[in-house]
């Protein structure tokens, strides 16, 4: 039953990669195409609009509300960048075989992700409360779809992060330390990508209006 897949943790000499690292880069390439499609659609819809953000059927535009939320979004940007830094630190800690520091940095990363989600919740509910639902205009539709997909990526990542510090996930450190370190590296790449997407979303959706 147990078969050994080559290059699961050691590097293949001619490619210099272990399997999961190539796998995550390919996955991120497809993610680039996913968000690339979203940003292209944004450009196309914005180019076709006479005013941006457009005015909805109720004669309102979300422009004034956006001004108010720039502060929150900036705070969120800082939170995500911090989580990216601590994500690297947790990987470095593993490389230095310091499991307690690893746990500490992981918990900071998790906290930052949760803070991001809480702030996002307040942003969403504020907008919806004011009547700016996705159906209001194409800006709101893009706003909710793009940030919504990004939030889904954060939530997915959060589950994996928590798994890594739970007894079930962390026990791999005792049996296969290299594989566990690789897992953290690979997940880190994903996490940086999610962070990077936000770095694009923030100016496009909040500042360039």
């Amino acid at each position: 039953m147990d078969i050994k897949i080559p290059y699961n943790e050691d590097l293949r000499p001619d490619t210099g990669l272990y399997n999961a690292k190539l796998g995550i880069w390919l996955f991120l390439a497809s993610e680039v195409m996913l968000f690339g499609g979203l940003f292209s659609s944004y450009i196309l819809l914005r180019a076709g609009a006479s005013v941006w953000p457009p005015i909805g059927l109720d004669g309102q535009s979300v422009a004034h509300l956006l001004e108010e939320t720039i502060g929150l979004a900036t705070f969120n940007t800082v939170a995500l960048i911090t989580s990216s830094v601590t994500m690297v630190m947790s990987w470095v800690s593993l490389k230095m075989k310091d499991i307690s520091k690893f746990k500490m940095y992981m918990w900071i990363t998790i906290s930052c992700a949760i803070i991001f989600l809480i702030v996002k919740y307040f942003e969403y509910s504020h907008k919806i409360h004011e009547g700016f639902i996705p159906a209001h205009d194409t800006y709101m539709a893009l706003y909710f779809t793009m940030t919504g997909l990004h939030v889904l990526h954060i939530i997915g990542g959060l589950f994996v992060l928590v798994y890594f510090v739970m007894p079930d996930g962390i026990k791999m450190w005792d049996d296969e330390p290299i594989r566990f370190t690789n897992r953290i590296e690979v997940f880190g790449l994903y996490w940086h990508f999610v962070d990077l997407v936000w770095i694009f979303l923030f100016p496009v959706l909040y500042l360039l209006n």
Partner: protein
Amino acid sequence: MSNKEHHEESFWTKYVFSIDHKVIGIQYGITALFFLLIGFSLMMVMRWQLAYPDTAIPIVGPFIKWLATLNGFASEGNLPSDLYNVFGAMHGTIMIFLGVVPLIVGAFGNYLVPLQVGAPDMAFPKLNMASYWSYLPGGIIMIISFFLPGGAANSGWTAYPPLSDIATQGQTWWLVAMIFLISSSLLGSVNIIVTIVQLRVKGLTWMKLPFFVWSQLITSFLLLLAFPPLEVAAIFQLMDRIAGTSFFLPSGLVISGEMLQVSGGGSPLLWQHLFWFLAHPEVYVLILPGMGVIAEVIANNTRKPLWGYKSLVYSSFFLGFMSFTVWAHHMFLTGMGQGMSTFFQITTMIISVPSVVILSCFMLSLWGGSIRFNVPMLFALGWIPMFGVGGLTGLPLGLSTSDIHLHDTYYVIGHFHYVVAPGTIFALFSGIYFWFPKVTGKMLDETLGKIHFFASFVFMNGVFFPMFIQGLAGVSRRLADGGASYAHAADVLKWNETMSYSAWLLGLAQIPFIVNLIWTLYKDKDSKANANPWNATTIEWTDATSPPLGHGNFKKTPVVYNGPYEYSVPGMKDDFLPQTKKIKKGK
């Protein structure tokens, strides 16, 4: 349960939730063949409506009546036009996304790629299982949607908005199912690429890879990069349908004389761009692995090296790359502008060059070979001219001037069916006959196979060739009465009966195939199907048993010394030199 059995895998982990690439490949194969049959059956029913509009359908009439009543359409055993639209949309969807792609990438790719590169399994076996178990729910959702009020999706497999935005709820199910299928493809393609790049055995350098592996590699890149934009489009359309957004709805849209109460500001063309950005590379996803199968079969049965191996590899790369730059040739008539049309017309003409190079290489490979006319080879030989017809009839469609006349006519239907049906599906049949002994250890019957081939060859042409005649006369596609009420069609209407009878006979022609599959499976193990019945050179034949060992594939990890197509090497006793056989240099 005895102690010994306790160590064995249970039925569930061995056959259902297996992580062995061979079992997953077979699961994909059986499921996809089943869906192909469903997709084909839909078409056989539609062909009755096209030949004899609004008359009761024999045999399946009561079932159609039951289904139509369930969906809320009036039917007296005939196919109402609403249901015709459903069948049309679902025929395309099922054939492409649930039938051909899962069969050629999911089944063939999964089963053969690890064996041909000498790997014990795919790089990520659990991900592999996840990709099948994401495909199956997608398929089940599609099938369930047939029984909803209003039927399944009915806006064509291209699901153009605004129509699809306001269509019945079957469309929502279609979108959800598509998201499952897209996820499945993404997982599968990552897995295949990593397997090929990372798990090639010692000595198997890039230019020693069988062409089939190359074709799977390029196909996987296309799936990986082209599907996400469709996922975006599907999410947008879901938002339009569920959250009331207007991604694809322009301002001031009037439906049945009433203004649609949406914010507007969207663009129906956005869907078409996102959709065709997937769906054109998808054409090459369908055809490239087919070419890979044909390459293996032709080299093996001409007993000589494949002509122009490197040209084939480079052409496929170029084909893959260019396929991302031609999508808007589906949109010449949308008014997107002359400049855009010119650009996409040029790229379309360019992309025909590598296809012709590949086809020419296959034809030149036949030159001077002592050809073995077995069933896989017959399908491969049938494939060459049929794919040629499909490819060449595409040229007038790629030129925006002639496309004005031909756009959305039966000519288009004829063109892409020649590429996909006798093209890809013939390659699939060829591959099934060729690798069946590998998978089961039993040879398929040659006589039944030949009946299957010749009947399919004749009736495929009977179905699709008259479409060119009708299309050139100007008959539009998607007419629920086959053109009976359409002035342009009067002179060419008679072809509808020919096509329909051909389609039903084509259905009958598949019976020998199905009988052959089942009957051979129940035979005892075949002594002819030893490890290498075709005297082939590639690793899966020379270093693995038939069927291969359980999980792990090889007793001993193979080491490769030779290229993939070393047939009839001068001075050798056998007319084939296995990739893993070391020969002394300097003779």
